[in-house]
C-alpha cells in the first residue's frame, strides 16, 4: 500500500465531505427560513385580532414556548407547543409587557381532553377566571401550565427590557 495514495485519498474525501457539510448547512438555513414563515403564518392566522400585517418570527425553544411572532403596533404573540405522552397542544398566546396572557388562540383542532383542558387552563390564567369548571385532569397539567406562564413572563420581560435598552 502506498502511503501517499492513502493520504491523498483521505484529503480528497475530507474536502468532499466539507463541501457536502456546507451544502447541508445551506439546506438547513433554507429550511429554517421557510419553517419560520410557516410558523409565523400559523400563529398569525389563528382566529383572533392579530390577522393582518407582516409578522417576524423568532425561534426560542424555551420549555413549551417554541417561538415569538412580532408585529408592528401589536402585542407580541408566542407560539406555545405543550407536549404530553399521546399528543401536543398548540396555541398562539398574545401577551402584555409583563408577560401575562391577553388572549390565547388554540391552533388546529384541539379534539382530545388534554388539549381542551390545557386551553381552558391557559385562558383561565390569562383572564383570572374562577376555577368552578375544574377537572380531574388539572392536577397533572397544572405544573405544565405554571411553567409555561413563568417562561412566557420571563421571555416577554427580557424582550421589553432589551427594547428599552435600545
Amino acid at each position, binding site marked *: 500500500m502506498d502511503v501517499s495514495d492513502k493520504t491523498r*485519498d483521505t484529503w480528497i474525501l475530507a474536502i468532499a*465531505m466539507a463541501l457536502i457539510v456546507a451544502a447541508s448547512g445551506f439546506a*438547513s438555513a433554507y*429550511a429554517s427560513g421557510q*419553517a419560520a414563515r410557516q410558523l409565523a403564518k400559523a400563529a398569525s392566522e389563528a382566529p383572533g385580532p392579530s390577522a393582518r400585517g407582516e409578522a417576524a418570527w423568532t425561534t426560542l*425553544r424555551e420549555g413549551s414556548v417554541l417561538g415569538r411572532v412580532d408585529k408592528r403596533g401589536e402585542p407580541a404573540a408566542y407560539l406555545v407547543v405543550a407536549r404530553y*405522552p*399521546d399528543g401536543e397542544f398548540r396555541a398562539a398566546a398574545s401577551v402584555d409587557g409583563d408577560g401575562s396572557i391577553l388572549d390565547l388562540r388554540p391552533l*388546529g383542532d384541539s*379534539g382530545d381532553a388534554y388539549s381542551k383542558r390545557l386551553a381552558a387552563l391557559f385562558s383561565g390564567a390569562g383572564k383570572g377566571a374562577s376555577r368552578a369548571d375544574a377537572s380531574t385532569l388539572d392536577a397533572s397539567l397544572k405544573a405544565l401550565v405554571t411553567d409555561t406562564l413563568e417562561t412566557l413572563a420571563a421571555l416577554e420581560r427580557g424582550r421589553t427590557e432589551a427594547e428599552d435598552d435600545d
Partner: protein
Amino acid sequence: MTIDDGRVPAGPLASIAGLAPLLVFSNSLSLGVALGIAFFLAYSAAGAMALLLPARLGRPAVFAFSLTGAAVVASLTASALRLFDPFLFEAAYGRVFLSVFTLPVLRACVMPETVSDRERAIESLLWGVGYAFLTAVTGAVRQFLATGAVSTRFGAEHGSLLPIFAQPAGAFILIALAAAAFKVVIKAVRGSES
C-alpha cells in the same frame, strides 16, 4: 443492547432491539414514517460508504467517513422534514439526529473485512428497508391501540382506547411481544425442518 440468548439468530432481532430508541418514540404513523425514512437513509448511507470506500484508508478512517456521511444524510433528512412540517420537525428532530448513532447504523459504518463480511453487509442493507418499514408500522399500530384510529396528519391524534401504548411502556410491551412471537416462529420453522 443485543438480543442474543443463544436460542435465536442474533442478526435481525438484535438490530430490532437496537432500533428501540426510535420505536419508543414512534407513537403515531406520521412520526413512524419520518423516523423510518430518517433511519433508512442514514443506515443506507453508512453501509454504502463502508462498502465502497477504498480499504487502503484503514478501518478507523472508513468508520469516521461513513459516520460523517450518515450524519450528513440525517441532517438533510431533518431539513426536508422541517420544510414538510415544522411542528413535526420540532417534535422529532432529536430522534432523527439520534438515528445516526443507533446500533444498526454504527455497525453499518464498520468496514467489512472478508468477502463473506461484504456479502453479509450487502444483505444487511436490504434489511434496512425492513427496519424502516417496522418503525412506520410500529407507529401506526401504537397510534391505533392508543387512540382507536390512525391519522396521517401529525398533531391530529385524538381519541382514547389504550393510552398506555402511546407511552414508552407501550413500546416496550409491543417489542417484547414481537420478540417472543419471533422466537416461537423460529422454533416452529426449525422444528419443521428437522
